[in-house]
């Protein structure tokens, strides 16, 4: 990239100092001077015109020599680009998605909603409908077929619902993050208490605890004593923590225990609970995670995760593509990629089981089977090893019959 920058600087500088305009000016001035001289003294015109020929030609030559230099710099910059961008950007060979514009549109639309870009999302919606209408008109005029599905792949109910849900989410989030107002989030958690509890989520308590802490630390101008803020927190706890008592007793006892230490909290054992600079961010991200989970959506935008994973995997796949092109095979036509495309650990969402015998990943058609000795191999391996009769586990001395093997889900 440094080489690119260096060459580009040269091109840009030469543009800034370009003499073309100056040469053109010079030509105009020369012509004008000659014209004025001739107008003044018409008898001088032969001499004046004769003397004008060479300078004008030289000025044009000057322009061309400048252009030649620029051309050279352009070529050098092109070479610097070629050096970094050796491979062409992958195009149709690697593209399995061209036939699904609607699905891509939908993914983008939902991504925009998810990111809280409601204006952009609604522009997209109206532009897509508009475009489809005009395409339909054109097609009718030319007597062509045109798809009639919703251009963003949405049905009416899910569309309205998604938009509403996400704008609700952003309202709650902006109250939480921008105004440190937890109430809308707490209200939401209470409304969805049953679903959250089924997930084993502690969101409501986390929110209330943070509310307690923020009351505790909120010293106001009108306060008479240092204890006013902790007392407000205590009041809150008395009214709101009742329902948590059974389950979060220790946590609540800890919070209450801090009240006597309110004047020098930082030296008390309660400091970590109260002095937590990232608490708001953490609560916000648990809220997003729980909110999306109840909508059966992943917490981070799938489009973002997939595009980023793609940028990471693409160089490997491209190398492969070049090799396969020579062999005239295409990876997009196979069930499984032929090479590993390592991703960072945060991109792992499922367990992976590779049969230790066949080295193949198990699937619904060839599922993992657990032998009575608790070793797991793929069904096809099991069939191959046992041939239907009693056989020895390849990993321990225990023998078993294939019908004793049990389908497991990894």
């Amino acid at each position, binding site marked *: *990239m440094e080489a690119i920058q260096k060459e580009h600087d040269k091109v*840009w500088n030469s543009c800034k100092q370009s003499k*073309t305009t100056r040469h*053109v000016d010079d030509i*105009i001035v020369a*012509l004008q001077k000659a014209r004025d001289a*001739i107008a003044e003294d018409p008898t001088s*015109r032969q001499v004046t*015109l004769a003397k004008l020929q060479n300078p004008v*030609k030289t000025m*044009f030559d000057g*322009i*061309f020599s400048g252009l030649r230099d620029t051309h050279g710099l*352009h070529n050098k910059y092109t070479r610097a*680009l070629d050096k970094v*961008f050796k491979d062409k*950007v992958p195009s149709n060979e690697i593209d399995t*998605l061209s036939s699904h514009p609607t*699905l*891509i549109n939908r*993914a*983008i639309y939902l*991504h925009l909603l998810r990111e809280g870009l409601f204006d952009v999302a609604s*522009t*997209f919606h109206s*532009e*897509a409908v508009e475009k489809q209408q005009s*395409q339909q008109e054109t097609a009718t005029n*030319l007597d062509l077929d045109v798809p009639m599905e919703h251009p963003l792949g949405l049905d009416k109910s899910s569309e309205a619902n998604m938009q509403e849900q996400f704008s609700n989410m952003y309202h709650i989030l902006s109250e939480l993050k921008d105004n440190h107002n937890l109430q809308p989030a707490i209200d939401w958690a209470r409304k969805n208490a049953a679903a959250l509890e089924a997930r*084993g989520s502690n969101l409501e308590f986390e929110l209330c605890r943070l509310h307690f802490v923020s009351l505790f630390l909120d010293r106001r101008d009108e306060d008479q004593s240092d204890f006013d803020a902790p007392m407000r927190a205590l009041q809150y706890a008395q009214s709101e923590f009742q329902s948590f008592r059974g*389950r979060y007793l220790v946590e609540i006892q800890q919070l209450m225990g801090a009240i006597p230490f309110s004047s020098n909290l930082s030296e008390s054992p309660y400091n970590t609970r109260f002095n937590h600079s990232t608490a708001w961010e953490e609560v916000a991200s648990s809220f997003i995670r729980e909110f999306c*989970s109840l909508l*059966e*959506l992943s917490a981070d*935008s*799938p489009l*973002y995760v*997939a*595009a*980023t*994973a793609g*940028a990471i995997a*693409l*160089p490997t796949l*491209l190398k492969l593509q070049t090799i396969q092109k020579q062999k005239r095979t295409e990876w*997009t036509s196979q*069930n499984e990629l*032929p090479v590993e*495309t390592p991703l960072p*650990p945060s991109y792992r*969402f499922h*367990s*992976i089981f590779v049969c230790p015998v066949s080295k193949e*990943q198990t699937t619904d058609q060839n599922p993992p089977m657990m032998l009575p000795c*608790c070793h797991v191999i793929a069904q096809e391996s099991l069939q191959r090893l046992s041939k239907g009769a009693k056989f020895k586990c390849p*990993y321990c001395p225990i023998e078993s019959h294939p019908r004793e093997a*049990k*389908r*497991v*889900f990894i």
Partner: protein
Amino acid sequence: MAADLTSIKLNPDSHVLLDQPLLRLPHELVKRNFRNTQRYVERERDQILPSLKDTANAALSSSQTPEETLASLDAMIQRMQTFKRKIDKLHAEEETLHEHSAKRIRHLQELYEIPSLADVKYDDWARTRLDRLMVDYLLRSGYSKTASSLAETKQISHLIDLDTFVTCHRIASSLNRGETKDALAWIAENKNSLKKLITAPYKCTNLEFELRLQQYIELVRAGTIPKKLEARMYAQQHLTPHASSRPDAIMQAAGLLAQEPNTEAEPYRGLFAPSRWRHLSNLFIETHHTLLSLPVQPLLHAALSAGLSALKTPACHSAYNPASSSTPGHARIATNTSLCPICSMELNDLARNVPYAHHTTSFVESDPVVLPNGRIYGRERLEELQRKLAMSGLGGGEGGIHDLQIGKEGEVRDPTTGESFTWEQVKKVYIM
């Protein structure tokens, strides 16, 4: 752990592959600008120098009066001033392009300063990249209002090429509507640059030839005697010169004159077909993108195809994975992990036909155990879920979490199916 270190390694040189057009396009535009400048200068020189010479000769031979000399000098001055305005405009355009390139180079440079894929700065950078990829996709699909609104909101206007794509889309749509005017004008404007796309024995691009052929087809379609005469003349001028390089097409064109527009006979039916406009529109886009070093397909397609595959596992469309949005009647589940992006509704259908990632070693949660229903999890995850459920008062002992020995007594909840078991039913399993 060693594997994890390599998996978060950021190799910027291979990573910027997708960002190529970011620098290629403005450079192509600069080169086009340069060729235009060069052409103008040549034209002016070839005009001014001879006429200056003629004027001088005329003055010497006294075949012109002084007034006539002044008049021709005035004409030259005026001409040069018009020329200067054109040059100034091109120069200003060039400066803007360089400024864009400089900003883009700086943006790419930022990637080179990020230590690893796990760095938060990478996350920011990658989000901007997604915004760029989306804008590129939207522009190519003709959603220019959405694209500019997104670019403005995310303040990435310097990283996108609105004008180029808007122009391209305008011309492509005009072809879709059955108009050739804009496309032919574009060809004329880019005559110099298009030369590099022409390979022998052809004398013009496929696009230009096909457009000329279409104009001819339209004259024939009109069917009247004068139109057919006009068609003949048009063919003489624009098609016959290509008789040796494109003999088949020229033969067909000649045969077309004897056909009715509703003919069922091939290839004439195909030539009269309205779907030819769609073909022309696609051909235009392809030619336009190739000329400007733009990939023909949206970059988002390339990134997503690769990403969907790299993330996809056999579980993502498995009938036994209740988290997958493709599982019929997929249940709201008590899972305490985050949902896989491929299983998520947004991408599940899109990922259906891409291959899944290749793995050579198993990866399961540590200390795997199997439940009576055959589901395998890491022991810790089950204990964690039991702890949380106990805290929220569901499952586990009545007295809440503190009387309970997590992982030994009480209820085990299956995080996927929601079924309950006891810890005695949980068995250790060996994954090699």
